[in-house]
């Protein structure tokens, strides 16, 4: 997006209302998250929200902008929630604080604040964290009903803030790799895909527990579609392309490439399709542009998941496509009616 604001930004109360609806739409996913993985996620969301608001206020002060109206627009909160949902809930407290502060200070305000940031701030924060702290970013809570020791809320809190686990427990006993990561590691060891998917971490659609959370985000996304906050182009193009590419690979060699449904319901695919790519500031303005943008993101996500060094590809795919937005916008802008093409 260039120097001028999108029309809706001229009325801060509207932005605030839209953002509030998006936050509401995240609630079913979050509720299911708490059910399967324990309440630790609520701690990260709270930490992220507080950091986001504090950083936002500090940056606005530094930039000599009015603090109150921008703080009330809820956009910083949305960034904070999206980041908190992308990182392991049991990560140490400073991880989410550093990540959120980076999102708001660097990815948002150094680029000129709301409306001017070319990159999705939450995804910038995620990229910074996964690159800088890969160890802390790979310890995910084991979902309910996997036979692992379950930590109580107090124990989880204690671990997040002090790094101390209750007597005799190792981090390995309460955490595990994500389904996507496990799949990748096992494929690396030359196990066939269908054999890997019989392990207890996997369920009928994708990963045990995480697939249900993905459904939660899908429901929230459908609510956003129904209330016309997002248009259908981005999610449909994203999920469609992901399905198509994964389907082609799966048909060609099912022992190496898992079914497209697995890709839909694992990692951040649903969150990405409805909540991340749909950020109006960092996505193209035209329908055609949105199609290209989302299809490109899906293709990159798939390639990173299958061939890349990182377990999930949504963040990097989104950032790479964010760079292309000005170009996509320039080529998909409808011709101005009545203007004759110049003859060179």
């Amino acid at each position: 997006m260039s120097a001028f604001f999108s029309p809706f930004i001229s009325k801060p109360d509207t932005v605030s209302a839209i953002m509030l609806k998006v936050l509401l739409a995240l609630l079913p996913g979050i509720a299911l998250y708490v059910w399967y993985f324990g309440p630790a996620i609520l701690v990260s969301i709270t930490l992220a929200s507080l950091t986001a608001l504090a950083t936002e206020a500090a940056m606005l002060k530094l930039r000599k902008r009015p603090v109150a109206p921008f703080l009330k627009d809820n956009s910083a909160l949305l960034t904070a929630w999206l980041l908190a949902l992308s990182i392991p809930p049991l990560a140490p407290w400073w991880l989410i604080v550093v990540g959120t502060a980076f999102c708001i200070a660097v990815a948002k305000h150094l680029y000129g604040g709301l409306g001017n940031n070319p990159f999705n701030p939450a995804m910038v924060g995620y990229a910074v964290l996964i690159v800088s702290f890969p160890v802390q970013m790979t310890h995910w809570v084991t979902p309910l009903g996997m036979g692992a020791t379950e930590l109580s809320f107090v124990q989880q809190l204690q671990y997040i803030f002090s790094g101390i686990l209750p007597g005799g427990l190792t981090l390995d006993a309460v955490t595990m790799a994500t389904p996507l990561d496990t799949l990748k590691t096992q494929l690396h060891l030359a196990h066939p895909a269908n054999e890997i998917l019989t392990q207890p971490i996997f369920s009928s659609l994708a990963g045990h527990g995480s697939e249900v959370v993905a459904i939660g985000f899908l429901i929230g996304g459908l609510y956003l579609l129904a209330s016309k906050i997002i248009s259908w182009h981005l999610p449909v193009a994203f999920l469609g392309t992901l399905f198509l590419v994964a389907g082609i690979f799966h048909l060609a060699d099912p022992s190496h490439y898992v079914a497209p449904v697995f890709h839909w319901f694992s990692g951040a695919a649903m969150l990405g399709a409805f909540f991340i790519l749909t950020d109006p500031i960092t996505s193209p303005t035209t329908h055609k542009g949105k199609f290209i943008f989302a299809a490109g993101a899906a293709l990159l996500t798939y390639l990173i998941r299958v061939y890349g060094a990182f377990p999930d590809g949504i963040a990097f795919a989104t950032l790479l496509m964010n760079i292309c937005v000005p170009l996509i916008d320039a080529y998909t802008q409808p011709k101005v009616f009545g203007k004759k093409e110049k003859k060179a």
Partner: protein
Amino acid sequence: MRRTLVKASLHTALNVLFFTVIGTFLLAITFFQTRDRIAQSEQTEKLKLISQLIPSSSFDNDIVADAQHLAPDALLGTTTGGTAYRARLHDQPVGVVLEAVAPDGYSGRISLIIAIKADGTLGGVRVVEHKETPGLGDYIDIAKSDWIQGFDGKSLTPQHDADWQVKKDGGQFDYMAGATITPRAVVKAVHKALQYFALHRTELFMQNSPASPDKGRRGGVKESTK
């Protein structure tokens, strides 16, 4: 017109030639001035690395010169061959330093040097080059953690091959949660190198016909910055 063009070209050519000659002369001088010192530095560097694995008091031969070129071998994971440096005390074999490659790291090949004592126990292992994820798989590097020292003193366990695995797979070697592919690759490569040593022990310690340690970069015993 033609004459002047020829003349101009000739002038230019001679000019460039003149500077080339001066440049070559300068380079030649510097080369001869620094040659011995460079060779010495390279030797010390190699020795420094080797002596981390085999204490320099335990041998008395010129270990860098007492090298043998090894043909590519599947057990060593080498595709272009490698070098074996032999340590001897009073002409009796003390140990050998082998170059080996773990081909199946998380992001590609991991180059190792492995010191094996004459009795078949490991003197030590070092990673000389790798592309593992920084902060995650790079703990195999001695600069990042002392994980690699877990190999010190280990040897083949013919009765119980399963020991040569990381603990997660039921073996004896530590690993860091979240990064098991990298240590698996290294453990496997060291295990194979020990098997290679067991098969080729006598040839490895054979005295060289007037040795020609292959020169330059090929030696690969070089601390990497990656």
